[in-house]
């Protein structure tokens, strides 16, 4: 009886598979083909153009540096915020709500917010000037101030993207019954030991999800960078955008898109291996 119905699950997932196939796989194949062909024949011309472009090396470096700076800080901040919220009795929802406000803002708008703070006539300069720390308007976001520009972009990215990491981690923390921490406490574990030996291992699945999601998003960083630095701070998606719109060269844009995808997939693979989740060791 039940054996005859084994087709039902397949039938039920069929619409989503068709949908994904049409809207994801087809464009994916097209993009791949676009990247490795020239006028309809296989060719590495686009790849060569991409790699030999003046901005290629810098955009790869910038994207990786930004990811390396932003993701660990976000994870640590999210863990800290999540642990603090977990200790609260009242007002928990309110704090979480406030912390997640940046999530409701589009990344371009977030870029504009930080632009209004960091630009020459921005709030930061006004405050510093008011306090007498600087004597005239200082430029933070130019080609001449790469470090300040990098820090500005990193802060904006952290401001914009930490909430999503925190939500995943708070969800993970909520899954850990308080008795585990209490048992550890009874048997003499310090708060730090409880965090490293009990909490962290138990939220591994959430940590893994957060890392994958956040890293993939970090490699796709664009709007915030574009708003703050324009082409002063080239990143991979920014280059793809330029080749597509400014240069009208879809082939090279596709090559960038493929590169970003490969990097994201590789990062995901690394996380899946490094932050292994052994189902046997879950509650």
């Amino acid at each position, binding site marked *: 009886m039940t054996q005859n119905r084994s087709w039902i699950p397949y039938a039920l997932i069929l619409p989503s598979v068709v949908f994904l196939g049409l809207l994801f796989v087809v464009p994916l194949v097209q993009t791949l083909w676009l990247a490795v062909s020239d006028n309809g024949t296989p060719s590495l011309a686009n790849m060569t153009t991409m790699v030999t472009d003046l901005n290629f090396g810098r955009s790869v470096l910038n994207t990786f540096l930004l990811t390396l700076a932003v993701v660990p800080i976000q994870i640590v901040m999210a863990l800290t915020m999540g642990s603090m919220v977990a200790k609260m009795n009242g007002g928990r929802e309110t704090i979480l709500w406030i912390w997640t406000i940046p999530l409701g803002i589009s990344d371009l708008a977030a870029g504009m917010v930080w632009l209004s703070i960091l630009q020459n006539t921005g709030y930061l300069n006004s405050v510093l000037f008011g306090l007498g720390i600087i004597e005239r308007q200082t430029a933070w976001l130019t080609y001449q101030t790469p470090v300040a520009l990098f820090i500005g972009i990193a802060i904006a990215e952290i401001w914009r993207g930490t909430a999503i990491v925190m939500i995943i981690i708070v969800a993970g923390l909520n899954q850990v*019954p308080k*008795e*585990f921490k*209490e*048992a*550890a*406490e*009874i*048997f*003499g*574990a310090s708060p730090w*030991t409880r965090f490293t030996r*009990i909490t962290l*291992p*138990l939220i*591994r699945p959430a940590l893994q999800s957060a890392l994958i999601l956040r890293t993939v998003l970090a490699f796709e960083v664009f709007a915030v960078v574009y708003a703050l630095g324009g082409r002063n701070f080239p990143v991979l998606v920014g280059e793809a955008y330029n080749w597509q719109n400014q240069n009208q060269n879809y082939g090279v844009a596709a090559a960038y898109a493929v590169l970003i995808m490969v990097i994201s997939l590789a990062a995901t693979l690394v996380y899946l291996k490094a932050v292994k989740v052994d*189902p*046997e*060791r*879950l*509650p």
Partner: protein
Amino acid sequence: MANIVIDNIKKSFGAFQALKGVSLTINDGEFVSLLGPSGCGKTTLLRIIAGLETSTAGDVRIGEKSVIGLLPKDRGLAMVFQNYAVFPHMTVYENVAFGLRMQKADDARVKKQVEKAAGLLHIEPYLDRYPNKLSGGQRQRVAVARALAVEPGVLLMDEPLSNLDALLRLEMRTELKTVLQEAGTTTIYVTHDQTEAMGLSDRIAVVHDGRIEQVGTPVEVYNHPATRFVGGFIGNPPMNFITMPVTGGQVTAGAQQFAVPAQGGEIVLGLRGETVERAPTGQGLDMQVRVAEPMGSHLLLTGSILGQPARVILPATETVRNGETVGLTLDPKRLTWLSPENGVSYPAAA
């Protein structure tokens, strides 16, 4: 010296009073059970002693020193949680070793202690496994082993054997008792299994609705319950309560007369079902038997005495038919008299 003094502990969760002033002294090395129905506040009291919960009022002293305000780890105790709280990401071995690792014990000592505790609880075959794949009873034993491995001065156990089958529970019970006695561990043992409490404890504290109704040895609590609740909660079948008329300080039951601590009006007789004997015809307190059930070891009679529901036990050699009326002789030394107004028992006659 690890004696424990619980001094008028109160605990409220919002408007709800979970503990309404609990006082209890546990001597060094003593085994005391907290026995009571679900929701009466046993776990809450244990958590307050452990320092996992703050009390609203009152004091807890361990070894003459107030521990209110001390962190759980500084109270010198171990605990078995009602829901085990065995760490899922550590092997059974590392779970049992956890307390010792926190004390920075060397590997040799860890190994020795873990093997000892594991042996006692029969969990050696699972030492390398993860708790995830173990049954509830196996996990529960891991939790007990984890607590025993640190050889604590004070051990708090919250229904540690509730998930074991009857046979294993009996065996574990005996072994626990032996090892805790040898080590001189002061133990508070939460259970709602009265047989377990009777068998294990030096003293039983019967908890009801956030209060301790009675503290005493198993025999005291069984034979002379302080309140109607205690008598009804302990014993299987529970104690019978029969309201009887008093005339001139005496109660008449068939051919028997008992002097009672009341002059007139009514008094409640607390009668243990197995303390009666079958009386010669016409001389006993009459019981109308509705159902007679031969249980093998004894005969269980369910029916009524003076129109009030009652259950008594007669030797298996007796035969009683359903619907029959039997006369019962009472044992004057084993009767409890209670006030009909507040259900509190009068002190046992000397």
